[in-house]
C-alpha cells in the first residue's frame, strides 16, 4: 500500500493517481460520519444531561393576550420553533416553563414571540422546589414562623429559610423512619399473625393481646408522625406569583429554594452540583418526574453485580471445558458456533425465556415448596430481581465464554508445556499458569458482560423491573437481602418517564440526566474493558516468541 512507501520517495504520484480518488474520499466521508455520529451523540447527551441540572435564569415576560390586555409570565424558555400559519405568515414561538402547577395545571405555555411586550429578569424571583406540583416560581414576601415573621427584605431571611428547609428535611426523614420502619415492623408482625391464624397454629384469642398492643403502638406512632407534620405546618413561606396571586408554602413541602437571577456563576455551579447530588441520592417524587433516581441506581447496581456473580463462574467453567477438556472435534466446533451466535440472539427472546422458565417454572415450584402458606399470592413465582439477574446472566453468558476462550487460547503453548514439564498436573497448570495469564482477558469479558447487562432493558420489562418499587432489594429488614423483590432500573426509568409518564415534557430534564448517568456507567465499563484488552495485547506480544 502506498502508506508503506517512505515519504518523498518520488514514487508518490503512482499512489496518488486520480482514478478512483473520489471513491476514496467517499469512504473517508463514511468514516467521518460514523465518528461524528458517535461523538455527536455522546456530546448531545452530555450537554442535555448536564444542562438539566443547571439553574437557568427566569424571565418575566409581559404577553399581550387580547386587545389591550397583558399577562405576566415568569419562567424560562425550553424550546423555540417556527410555525407557519395557513395564511403564509411565519411565527416564532417559544415554549416557556412557568411551573406553579398548583395554580394552573399547565406548567408549559406556548408564546408567540411577536406578542411579548417586554422581558425582564427581576432579581428577587425565587425558584422553589416542593414535594408536590413540581417547582414554583414566586417573589418571596416573608417567612412566617411561630417565633415571628421575617420579611424577605430582612438580611437574615435567606439564612432562616435555609435553616427551615434543613429542619423540614430532617423531620421528613424522621417521618419516613416512623412510617417505613416502625409501622412497617408492626404490619409485618400482624401479617405473620394472620398467617398463623389461617394455618391454625394459633387461635385469635391467643393473638388478641398482642394484637391490641400492636394496634396501640401503631396509633402512637401515627400520632407521633402527625405531630411532626403539624409542627412543620406552623412555618410558612409566603410569596406572590408574578401575576399577583398570593401563595404560601408550609415548610413540610419545601425541598429547596434558589434565586437564579441574583446568583453569580459560582452560586449557579454550586446549585447545579447540589441538584446533581440530590438527583443521585434522593428518592423519586411525583410519579418519578421530580426528585432523584437513587432506587434506580441501586437496583441497576445490585442487578448487575448479581448478574456478574452468576455469569462469571459459569462462563469461565464452560470456557475452560470447551478449550481445555473437551476433545476438539466437530461437536465442540458446533457448540462454539452456537454459543457465539447466542450473543446475537435478540435480548427480548432471553426475557421471554426468563419469564417462562425462571419466573413461572422455577419460581412457581419454589413457592409450592417453601411458601405454600402465602399462596395464591406468589413470592418467587412473580418477576423479581433474582430472576432478572439470572436472565441477564444467561444473556451475557456468551460474552464471557467467548472472551474467556480467547484469553485461554492466547496463553502460549510453551508456557503450558513448561508447567507440565515441571510436573504440574493438568489442573495445577490451569490453576497456576493458564488462569492467571488469562485473567485480564476474563476480566475484560466480565466487564463487557456487565456493560451489556447494565444497558439492557427489554428483557427486564418481562422479568422484574417496575416503574416504582416501594422498597429496595437490600435493606435493614431481616433477612436483609430480598431477591424476590421487584426493582427499579435506570434504563427502564428512561423508557417509563419518556413514554409512559403523564407529563413527559416536565420529565424531560430528568430523562436526559438519567440517560447521561446510564451512558456514563456503560461507557466507563466499556472503556475499562478496552484498556485492559489493549494492555493484554502488549503483554502477550512480549511473551510470545
Amino acid at each position, binding site marked *: 500500500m502506498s502508506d508503506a512507501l517512505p515519504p518523498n520517495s518520488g514514487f508518490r504520484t503512482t499512489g496518488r493517481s486520480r482514478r478512483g480518488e473520489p471513491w476514496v474520499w467517499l469512504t473517508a466521508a463514511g468514516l467521518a460520519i460514523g465518528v461524528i455520529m458517535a461523538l455527536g451523540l455522546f456530546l448531545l447527551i452530555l450537554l442535555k444531561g448536564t444542562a438539566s441540572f443547571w439553574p437557568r435564569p427566569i424571565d418575566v415576560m409581559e404577553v399581550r393576550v387580547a386587545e389591550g390586555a397583558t399577562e405576566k409570565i415568569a419562567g424560562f424558555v425550553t424550546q423555540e420553533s417556527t410555525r407557519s400559519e395557513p395564511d403564509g405568515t411565519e411565527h416564532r414561538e417559544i415554549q416557556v416553563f412557568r411551573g406553579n402547577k398548583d395554580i394552573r395545571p399547565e406548567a408549559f405555555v406556548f408564546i408567540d414571540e411577536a406578542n411579548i411586550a417586554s422581558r425582564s429578569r427581576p432579581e428577587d424571583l425565587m425558584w422553589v422546589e416542593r414535594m408536590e406540583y413540581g417547582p414554583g416560581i414566586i417573589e418571596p414576601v416573608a417567612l412566617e414562623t411561630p417565633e415571628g415573621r421575617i420579611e424577605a427584605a430582612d438580611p437574615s431571611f435567606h439564612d432562616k429559610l435555609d435553616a427551615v428547609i434543613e429542619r423540614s428535611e430532617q423531620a421528613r426523614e424522621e417521618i419516613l423512619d416512623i412510617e417505613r420502619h416502625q409501622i412497617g415492623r408492626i404490619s409485618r408482625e400482624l401479617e405473620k399473625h394472620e398467617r398463623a391464624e389461617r394455618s391454625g397454629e394459633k387461635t385469635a384469642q391467643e393473638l388478641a393481646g398482642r394484637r391490641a398492643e400492636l394496634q396501640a403502638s401503631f396509633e402512637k406512632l401515627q400520632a407521633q408522625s402527625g405531630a411532626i407534620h403539624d409542627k412543620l405546618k406552623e412555618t410558612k413561606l409566603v410569596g406572590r406569583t408574578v401575576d399577583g396571586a398570593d401563595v404560601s408554602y408550609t415548610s413540610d413541602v419545601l425541598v429547596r429554594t434558589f434565586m437564579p437571577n441574583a446568583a453569580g456563576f459560582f452560586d449557579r455551579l454550586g446549585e447545579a452540583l447540589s441538584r446533581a447530588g440530590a438527583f443521585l441520592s434522593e428518592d423519586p417524587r411525583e410519579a418519578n418526574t421530580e426528585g432523584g433516581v437513587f432506587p434506580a441506581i441501586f437496583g441497576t447496581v445490585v442487578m448487575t453485580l448479581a448478574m456478574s456473580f452468576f455469569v462469571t463462574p459459569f462462563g469461565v467453567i464452560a470456557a475452560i471445558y470447551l478449550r481445555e477438556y473437551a476433545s476438539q472435534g466437530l461437536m465442540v466446533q458446533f457448540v462454539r458456533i452456537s454459543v457465539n451466535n447466542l450473543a446475537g440472539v435478540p435480548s427480548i427472546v432471553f426475557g421471554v425465556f426468563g419469564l417462562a422458565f425462571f419466573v413461572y417454572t422455577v419460581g412457581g415450584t419454589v413457592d409450592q415448596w417453601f411458601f405454600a402458606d402465602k399462596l395464591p399470592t406468589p413470592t418467587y413465582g412473580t418477576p423479581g430481581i433474582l430472576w432478572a439477574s439470572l436472565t441477564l446472566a444467561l444473556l451475557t453468558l456468551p460474552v464471557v465464554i467467548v472472551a474467556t476462550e480467547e484469553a485461554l487460547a492466547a496463553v502460549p503453548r510453551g508456557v503450558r508445556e513448561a508447567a507440565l514439564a515441571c510436573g504440574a498436573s493438568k489442573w495445577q497448570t490451569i490453576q497456576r499458569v493458564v488462569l492467571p495469564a488469562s485473567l485480564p482477558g476474563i476480566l475484560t469479558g466480565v466487564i463487557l458482560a456487565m456493560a451489556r447487562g447494565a444497558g439492557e432493558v427489554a428483557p427486564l*420489562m418481562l422479568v422484574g423491573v417496575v416503574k416504582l418499587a416501594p422498597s429496595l432489594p437490600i435493606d435493614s429488614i431481616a433477612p436483609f437481602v430480598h431477591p424476590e423483590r421487584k426493582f427499579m432500573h435506570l434504563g427502564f426509568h*428512561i423508557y417509563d418517564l419518556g413514554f409512559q409518564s403523564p407529563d413527559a415534557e416536565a420529565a424531560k430534564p430528568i430523562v436526559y440526566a438519567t440517560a447521561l448517568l446510564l451512558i456514563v456507567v*456503560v461507557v466507563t465499563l466499556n472503556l475499562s474493558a478496552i484498556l485492559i484488552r489493549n494492555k493484554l495485547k502488549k503483554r502477550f506480544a512480549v511473551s510470545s516468541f
Partner: protein
Amino acid sequence: MHPQPNAPDPKRFEVSRATLWFDRFMGWAIRFGGIGVIIAVFGIFYFIGKEVVPLFRAADVEPAGKLEAPAAATGVLGIDEWGELPFFYQAGGPVAFRPVAGGDGFELEVPGLEGAEVTATAYDPVHRRVALGLADGRVGSFLVEYARSHGDDAEVSAKVTPEPWFPLKSGAGPVTAVSYGDSGGGRIIVAKRGAGPDATTTVLRLAMKRGLIGAGKLTALGEVEITTELGAEPLILRASQNGSMVLAACANGEIDYFLANGAEVTKRQSFSPFDGEVPRQMDYLFGGVSIIVTGPGGEQEQWSLFRESEDAERMFGLTQTFPPLGDGDVLFAASQRNRTFLTGAGGHLSIRHSTSGKTRWEGEAEIAPAAAVLDGKGEHFLVVSASGEARRYSVEDPHPEAGWKAFFGKVWYEGGSGPVYQWQSTGGSDDFEPKLSLMPLIFGSLKGTAYALLFSVPVALLAAVFSAAFLPLSVKRIVKPTMEIMSSLPSVVLGFLAGLWLAPILETRVPSVMAMLIAVPASALVMGFAWCRLPIRFRNRFANGSEWMMVVPVLALAGWLGWQAGPLIESIFFVYQDPATGREIADFRLWWPQATGLSFEQRNSLVLGFMMGFAVIPVIFTIAEDALSNVPKSLTAASSALGANRWQVVWTVMLPVASSGIFSALMIGFGRAVGETMIMVMATGNTPVTEWNIFNGMRTLSANIAVELPEAPVGSTHYRTLFLGAVVLFLMTFVMNTVAEVLRQRLREKNKIV
C-alpha cells in the same frame, strides 16, 4: 542406614495422591459444569418451544361418564356454566335435572303452564332461556337459573323462573316455531303460527319497563307481521341472541334477514346458500354475527355479516365452508367462549372452529345422539339419544383459534370483508375474537430492519473500507474503539432520543433531510474530484489517511447547506393544496398524504432508520473492518507493486477477497436490527401496518413481545402466540448468525492458505 546423598528418593517422582485426586476431581467438575452450562444454554430452545407446542395440538376428547336422561327428552338440552347439572326439557313436561356426578336427579315444574299445550320450543344457551310457543297462540319463556355454593364441596342448585306470556294478535292456530332474542333492555320474539302456505310469522317486540321499585316489568311494545316479506313458509326461525335481527330459512331455500331497529323490522337481505334447497340446520355462533348452515347434502357453511365496502350496509356473505356431514338429523351446539361449535349427523360428531375452518376433533358417539350441548367453559359436552341415554365427554382444546394458517396465512375474521393478515390480540368485548396473524409483525420487523440497513450499511461499509485500507495504525487504535463503544450505547437511550428528540425535529424538516442525504455524499465525491486536481506539492503536505479529517468541514458545510435548503425545496416541490379553499401551503407533512395517499406520522421509519444506525453501524463496521484488515498483506502489496493505485488495490483485491466476511457482517447487522427492541418500541408508532411507507411506523415482533407479554394471561393463546413470535425471531437471527459465522470461518481458512 543413611541414604546416599546423591541417590534420588524414588518417591520424589511420585505425584502426591492429593494432587492426583484433586486433578481428577477438578477434571470432572469442569466437565460436569461445562456440559451443564451448555445444556442450560440449549435449554432455552426447549423451554420456549415447550410453551409453543400446545398451540398446534388438536383437541383431545375423552368419554367422561354417562347418565340417564328422562326417556324421549330430546326437546331442549341445557347445562350450567360449570358443566355439572344438565337439564332436559320436553314440551309440556317438567324440567328434569340430572347431576353428572351421578346420584338422583330432580324435576321442577314450569309454573303457570298448567293446562297449556306447548307446541314449539327453542333454547338460548347464553341466557339459558327456553322459549315456548303454545297451542293457544301465546308465546313466552322460562329461565333456568343456576347458583353454586362456595367452598370445597360446592354444589350447583337450579331453579326455574317463568317470564310473562304474551298472546299473539296476528295469525291463527298453534305456534309452530319460536325464537327469542334478548339484549337486556330490548327483546324480540319471532314466532310462526300455523303451517303450510297459510302460516303467519310475527315479530313481537318486548321491553323491560323500569318501575320505581322492583326489577321492572316486561311489556309488549308491538307486533310486526313479516309473513308477506318472506319468500315462502319459514321452516327455521332464529332471532339473534342480542335481539337485533331475525333470520328465517324458508321453504324455497332462501334465507331472509330482518333487522329489528326500534319499532321497525325491515328486510335487509335474502340469500340462498344451497340453490333453492332448504337448509337442514341454521344456528348462530357465539357473538351472533355469523350463522352456520347445513345444506341437504351435508355441506356446512358459515355466513357472516360484513361490509363489502366501507360505506355499504352489513350483509350476510359466505365466509367459510366445512367438510360435509353425513345423513341424519344435524346436531349443533355453539361454544359460549369462542368460535368453536360441536356438530354432527348420524352418530358422527366433530368439533369445528369457524374462523379457521378447521376440524378440531372428529369421532363417533357411542350412542345415536339427538341433541348436544357444550358447557360454558367449553370443557365438556353432553349428547343425548332419543331413547334417553346421555354421554358426557371432556374436551381439552385450549387453543382452537391457533394453527399455522392463523399465524402465517390470511384469515377471514368475522365482520371483515375478506381474508387478511391481522394482529389484534385484545379487544373490549367478551365476544371479541383475537386476530393473531404474525405476518404484520414479521413484516414490521423486516421493514424496520430494511430502513435501518438502508442507512447503516453504506456508512458502515465505507467507514470499514477507509479504516482498513487507508487509516494509519495509530489513528485506527483510537477510532475503532470509539465505534465499538457506540455499539454498547443502551438502546433505551437511543430509542428515547429517537422518539422525543429526533422525531419532533425531523417532522418539519423532511425536505432538509432529503437534501442532506444527497448533498453530503455528493460533497465528498466532489471534494475527492477536486482534491486530486490540486498541485501535488500542496497535497503532499497532508499525510495519506487523514482524508477523513479533511472531509469533515466539507461534509459539515454540505450538511448545513442541505438543511438550510430544505424550506426552499419544500416551497418548490412539496406544495399542498387545501381542497376546501384551494390555498397552497408548502408543507411536506400535508403534501405526502395528498400526493401518495399514504400517511405521515411523527415517529416514522426515517427516524427509526437513522437511530438504528447507532446500533447497527458499529456491528457491521467492526466485522467488515476485521475482514478487510485480515486480507493478507502479500496480496495487497503485490497489487501495489504491479502498479495499482490505492483505490484499485481496494476495489480489485481487498473487496473481493473479503467479500464473504463483508457479507457475514451484513447478516450479523441484520440480526442485530431485527431483534432490536427498545428503539423499535420507542421510535415507531407500534401500529401493525403492512406497507413500506417510509413516513409511518410499524410494529415489530420484538416490540410486540415487550409490550404485550407482561399483560398476557399465562398459558393463554395470546401468551403462547407471543412465545411463537419469540421463536420466529430467534430462528431468524440464529440462522442468519450461523450462516455468517460459517462464512467467516471459511474466510479465515482461506486467508491462512494464502
